[in-house]
């Protein structure tokens, strides 16, 4: 390479450097000096992001009655550096709060995440409308303050708190994991509000404004090029019958327990009562935190959703399942008779009440005979066809699970529990391998022992029986927004492992339990209605917490089932005493929309069964 070329190249490289940097300087001169687009009138331009909060979707019951709507409240925002000194007392009076609260609000203001004295920060949250109207008139005297509308939940009827759930501010964890949420946003925390958060919340919008040094809006930024419109949340139509729900909650006042009612044909949940309950509007507004604390520390656990989270032994109601398994496996025939002389006497023995003897399968269900089902159960487990007790239990367990036991049903509510169906490995661990027999686990025959299920699973079980062998996953939402379709899993038929012909014998027994002649031995005659044929089964579930739980499940009418219901009343005694009349009243209310037995209603309404916990029978 010649020396000249070398000098040339030095020159070319220098030229490139100068040219490129010159281009940058020209461009800089253009955007900084010539082009006025980037310079606004005032010296300190800041963009203001005003979030447009969408209205959360409404929730309706199955008949179009409004359950949950929204109301407007205001957050008080403040730009600290614009605030002039003011009379704290007057300010506090205007806002209907104490001067201490004002001072406290200002101290905690600075601790907020991303605090800046130039940005509008939230000073006070969720001020009621009337206060804000008063304050707005005086707003001109308080530079730097402004009101931002927010919507919070409003409950048209004070029912179904557990099922509806509540809405609250997002926590830090959610903000970090989900870019949609920002500090101060609301989110569904439990119940339907949580399950359907995405549908209910809609989509936030943002308006970007240019503001001057006095925080006055000068106009939309870039003519709204980067703005977005808020999209309203979708409405939910639920399967709940608000009147039935309300009636159920009324009946359960002063009782602990749960009622779940399902339309067996569709799996739609008609009512889901948990008692004790609370008024959902307690968890809205400025007193929310305080009320929540109070509910949380209540010894009766009103926040606990018993319908889907409480695990109870099914008790005698479970005899119908053992009867069906026995029939399917061929170890018992509808006319097989066993005699009962006050109990099953093998091993430790299982007692029974006094009734006529011998009896067949239908009668055994009608009279809830323990002895009969001990025979049936042992014959299932010890059936020589299976070869071993373990295999026998496996067969039994497979049948039981096909009724929706031992796993979550998949209802559209958060935190559902799945219950327990004991397995061979469980007993191997509990006793030892080979250390147990059908006699050891005999309490399963009458729905006691290690077996447990939620009230929802119980309602689903009786719904399965009403359908003669199948169920649809219980669900609470019927439609979302304009679309009529919901998750496909709610229209899938789950068949049990029992042939449908066997159900009629069991249903016959449940019919007789309610509708037999006086003196016929039926355990639930108190539930009978003159014009509607109810089929039901009582249960008295022993538990370690005190007096037995009163259990009853039923469906009606017998030939065209429209409602399947399970009732649990904790520590209340016999199933027939409390649970059966409650179920009967609920069925009558739903099917006829009237009550023909005011004496029965009064008997339930006046009962206070709260303080029976811990007392033994």
């Amino acid at each position, binding site marked *: 390479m010649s020396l000249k070329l070398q000098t040339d190249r*030095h020159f070319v490289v220098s030229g490139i450097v100068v040219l490129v940097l010159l281009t940058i300087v020209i461009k*800089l001169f253009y955007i900084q000096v010539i082009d006025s687009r980037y310079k606004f009138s005032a010296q300190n331009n800041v963009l203001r992001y005003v979030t447009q909060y969408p209205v959360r979707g409404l929730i309706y019951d199955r008949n179009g009655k409004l359950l949950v709507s929204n109301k407007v409240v205001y957050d008080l925002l403040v730009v600290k550096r614009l605030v002039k000194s003011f009379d704290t007392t007057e300010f506090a009076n205007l806002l209907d709060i104490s001067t201490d609260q004002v001072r406290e609000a200002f101290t905690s203001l600075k601790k907020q995440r991303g605090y800046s004295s130039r940005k509008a920060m939230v000073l006070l949250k969720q001020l009621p409308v009337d206060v804000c109207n008063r304050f707005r008139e005086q707003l001109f005297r308080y530079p730097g303050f402004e009101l931002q509308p927010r919507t919070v939940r409003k409950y048209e009827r004070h029912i179904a708190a557990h099922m509806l759930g509540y809405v609250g501010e997002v926590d830090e964890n959610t903000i970090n994991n989900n870019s949609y949420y920002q500090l101060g946003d609301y989110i569904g925390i439990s119940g339907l509000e949580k399950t359907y958060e995405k549908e209910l919340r809609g989509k936030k919008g943002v308006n970007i404004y240019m503001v001057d040094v006095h925080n006055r809006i000068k106009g939309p930024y870039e003519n709204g090029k980067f703005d977005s419109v808020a999209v309203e949340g979708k409405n939910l139509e639920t399967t709940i019958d608000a009147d039935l729900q309300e009636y159920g909650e009324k009946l359960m006042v002063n009782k602990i327990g749960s009622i779940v009612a399902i339309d067996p044909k569709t799996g739609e949940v008609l009512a889901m009562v948990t008692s004790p309950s609370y008024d959902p509007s307690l968890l809205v507004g400025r007193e929310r935190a305080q009320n929540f604390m109070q509910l949380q520390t209540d010894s009766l656990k009103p926040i606990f959703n018993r319908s889907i989270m409480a695990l109870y032994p099914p008790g005698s109601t479970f005899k119908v399942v053992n009867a069906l398994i026995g029939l399917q496996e061929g170890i018992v025939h509808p006319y097989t008779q066993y005699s009962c002389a006050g109990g099953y006497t093998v091993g430790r023995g299982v007692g029974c009440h006094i009734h006529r003897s011998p009896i067949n399968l239908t009668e055994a269900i009608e009279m809830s005979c323990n002895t009969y089902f001990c025979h049936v159960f042992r014959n299932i487990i010890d059936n020589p066809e299976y070869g071993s007790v373990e295999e026998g239990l496996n067969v039994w367990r497979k049948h039981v699970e096909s009724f929706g036991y031992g796993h979550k049903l998949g209802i559209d509510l958060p935190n559902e529990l799945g219950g327990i169906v004991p397995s061979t490995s469980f007993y191997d661990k509990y006793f030892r391998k080979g250390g147990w027999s059908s006699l050891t686990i005999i309490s399963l025959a009458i729905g006691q022992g290690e077996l447990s299920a939620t009230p929802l699973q119980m309602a689903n079980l009786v719904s399965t029986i009403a359908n003669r062998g199948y169920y649809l996953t219980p669900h609470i939402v019927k439609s979302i927004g304009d679309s009529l379709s919901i998750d496909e899993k709610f229209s899938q038929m789950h068949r049990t492992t029992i042939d449908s012909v066997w159900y009629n014998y069991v249903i016959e027994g449940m019919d007789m339990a309610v509708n037999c002649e006086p003196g016929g031995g039926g355990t639930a005659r108190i539930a009978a209605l003159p014009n509607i044929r109810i089929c039901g089964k009582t249960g008295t579930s022993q538990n370690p917490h005190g007096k037995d739980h009163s259990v009853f499940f039923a469906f009606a009418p017998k030939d065209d089932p429209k409602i399947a219901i399970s009732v649990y009343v904790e520590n209340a005694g016999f199933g027939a005493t409390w649970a059966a009349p409650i179920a009967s009243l609920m069925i009558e209310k739903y099917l006829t929309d009237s009550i023909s037995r005011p004496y029965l209603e009064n008997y339930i309404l006046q009962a206070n069964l709260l303080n029976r916990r811990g007392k033994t029978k």
Partner: protein
Amino acid sequence: MERRSKLLSNLDWTTVFIYILLVLMGWLNIYAAVYSDEHSSIFDFSQRYGKQLIWIGFAFLLAIIVLFSDARIYSGFAYVFYILIILALFATLMFGKVVNASKSWIQVGSFAIQPAEFAKIATILALAKVMGRYNFKLNSFKSYVVAGFIAFFPALIILMQNDMGSALVFGSLIIVFFREGLPGWLLAFFAFLVMLFIFTLVFSTSAIMVTLLLLAGIVFVVIGGKLKAYARLLGIVLGVGVVLYFGSQIFSWKIPFNYIFIIPILVGVLAALIKAIASRSRIVFYSALFLLVSVGLSLSTDYVFEHVLDVHHQKRINDLLGIESDPLGWGYNVNQSKIAIGSGGFLGKGYLQGTQTKFNFVPEQSTDFIFCTVGEEWGFIGSFVVILLFAILLLRLLKIAERQRETFSRIYGYGVVSIMFFHVAINIGMTIGLVPVIGIPLPFFSYGGSSLWSFTLMVFILLKLDSDRYGALG
């Protein structure tokens, strides 16, 4: 004692002065970018400006160590440094931690180091060593392969770390090749390829245009056998394109973006056709055929991008250019950055008075977008001074490189200039919307130890070599 006084008298004090000036200005701007009413103490080491102060202290220490080191180690150990840094890059690839989707940081104790920053020094040292060999000439295929490998192999590993910005930096070493004998038209062609590559990825529609141009080139070279003629043609196309592009960028001509590609290509194709007819062969036929094929291909390119590639592939392509690290979309960020700089006006809003940068409107405001603070608070005057200082520094370094007696030192000097120039031009260019957003720091200004130390080492090694240029004599 004599040696020290020689060092001090031979040292290029102009460069040292500009260096110190830039570092201090950088620090003041980081302070301004992070500044808030709560943390106003300058020596708050929990804040970025506090930490940067520590990095600066270390940088000065490094500079002094380099100045008092033996100049021969840089040429003597060039390959050792190179191999070590290659190993470090591989180690990062395997054990590094992921920041912003790229795995380019390695954790050492309580702080993280980015080996890619130091790979630049090692690479130019090794490149200088290879090209500075007594009988090395850039005139054979083999010589290009060897030098090319040394220069671009680290870039490949860095690319695997998913750090497109740092990898692209190595492309600037083409300037070194140019200085050492690469034909000029190849430099132009390279620049052209780089620009088109970037634009194609950013604007998918223009993939069409690239295909067209490349095919026109094949037609011309293969059929016409005239490589130089094509390069000349490409020069025309590129020239028209550049004029249109920067014209539309600077003076807001209302030219739809695609036309910036279409117009020069049409001009080029027209010229090619005239040439083809003039040479009276089957060229016209082939040209027509190739045009047809190229149009078909370009349409399918668009189709493939939109329909065949699924979203995460498209995203990955966008990722390559750092578009994804921009949480609210590409247009938004550049717009914010331009507003911050543009709102500075002629004189600026005054130190610590910037509002745009303070309220986090501009992302990465203390690292990649630090120039926004300069533009907003110091205005055009301040921006101009900063760019002027960089220009003086770069030209000064070029001058230093040229006055070296050792080829090694000269090539090293050119390497330093290439890399620093690329960083400055791309970084400032992206903040004002001249080039796509490529996440590379502004030398001496951006927050972070690795970048500051690497540029300090780069410059002071050159100054050391320079002060020692008569060393061989005495």
